[in-house]
């Protein structure tokens, strides 16, 4: 019985190392970074307004890049993809690529239709 308990502990122990560094400090650091990025995002949403008056496309690029960075941090560290099997990364990335392509095609198609006749539908 004692041997069994020991075996069970051995089974559980490597899990922590192989799966993810369960480091509370890292988790909190990631949260602080995510919080700061969110604050920067709110600030960046005013970039195309006075007194900064940057081009709207610059603002959109900055905001999308910041959101992508936030997403990447959540997926890598909170969802542990950085430390987990690459198959899970492949599964998730496949969905993201399909979704991104779909969104691009969707936006281009409707943008093209709108350019033809003004109103769509």
């Amino acid at each position, binding site marked *: 019985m004692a041997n*069994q308990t020991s075996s069970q502990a051995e089974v559980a122990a*490597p899990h922590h190392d192989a799966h993810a560094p*369960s480091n509370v400090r890292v988790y909190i650091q990631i949260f602080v970074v995510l919080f700061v990025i969110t604050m920067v995002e709110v600030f960046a*949403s005013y970039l195309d307004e006075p007194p900064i008056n940057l081009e709207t496309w610059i603002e959109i690029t900055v905001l999308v890049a910041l959101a992508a960075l936030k997403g990447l941090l959540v997926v890598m560290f909170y969802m542990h993809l950085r430390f987990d099997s690459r198959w899970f990364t492949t599964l*998730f990335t496949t*969905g993201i690529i399909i979704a991104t392509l*779909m969104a691009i095609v969707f*936006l281009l198609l409707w943008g093209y239709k709108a350019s033809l006749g003004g109103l769509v539908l």
Partner: protein
Amino acid sequence: MAQAVAHDQKEHAAGGHGHGHPPTSLGLNSRKVGLWTFISSEAIFFTALISTYLVLKPRNIALGGPEPQDFLGITLTAILAFILLMSSLTMVLALHAVETDNVRGTRLWLGATILLGLMFLGGQVYEFNKLWSEGFHTIVITEPDGKVERIGVAEHHLEEELPHLQAEHPNAQIQDTGRKPVTWTTSLFGSTFFTMTGFHGTHVAIGVVWLSIVLVMSLRGAISSRNSLTVEMAGLYWHFVDLVWVAIFTLIYLI
């Protein structure tokens, strides 16, 4: 008993964490493969909803629907974004606690995540109620040459906006079609916005129920490091829900 332990060791060596769920031929835990596949499909689902909102946004304005900027406040949604980020932190802390057999910590952080999820849902209900109680007016401007233009004006901007429109179109006939509430059926903005955020809110609610079940299991002593995958699975789903809000917050509220 020895056989059971041997099975556990074999399963762990193959990347599995739970009981009764043998690894796939790739050596992966089948429950995790299923959840990651589900998350992947959900990413496509939410992208479709967000894209629909974005492509119909100009059409909504052309039809005299409400201007999103007049109704969507950044302050409230930034607070909601903060709440969900905070809940992602408490979720990983719950997973850390269960992996280190910290029973009290597991219950504490799971409870905190549930509470933050409920706070988010409360904020969303408040926002929806605010939108329903506010109204917008579609102003139809008919120029002498027959050209018709429709402009959506928020009710709280109507008094200041009407004189501007009259000054801009001195010879046109300006007609107010009356007050309409911002609901699912009164404009394209309402249809696409409530569908998208409603689905997200539903996912949060499902997450809260899922986490509550895990918390009850923990209170009954059924959760430990040996079946930490139960918490990890709920956590993966919860982080994905947070991820969707990251996209919605940026693409819908900030841009």
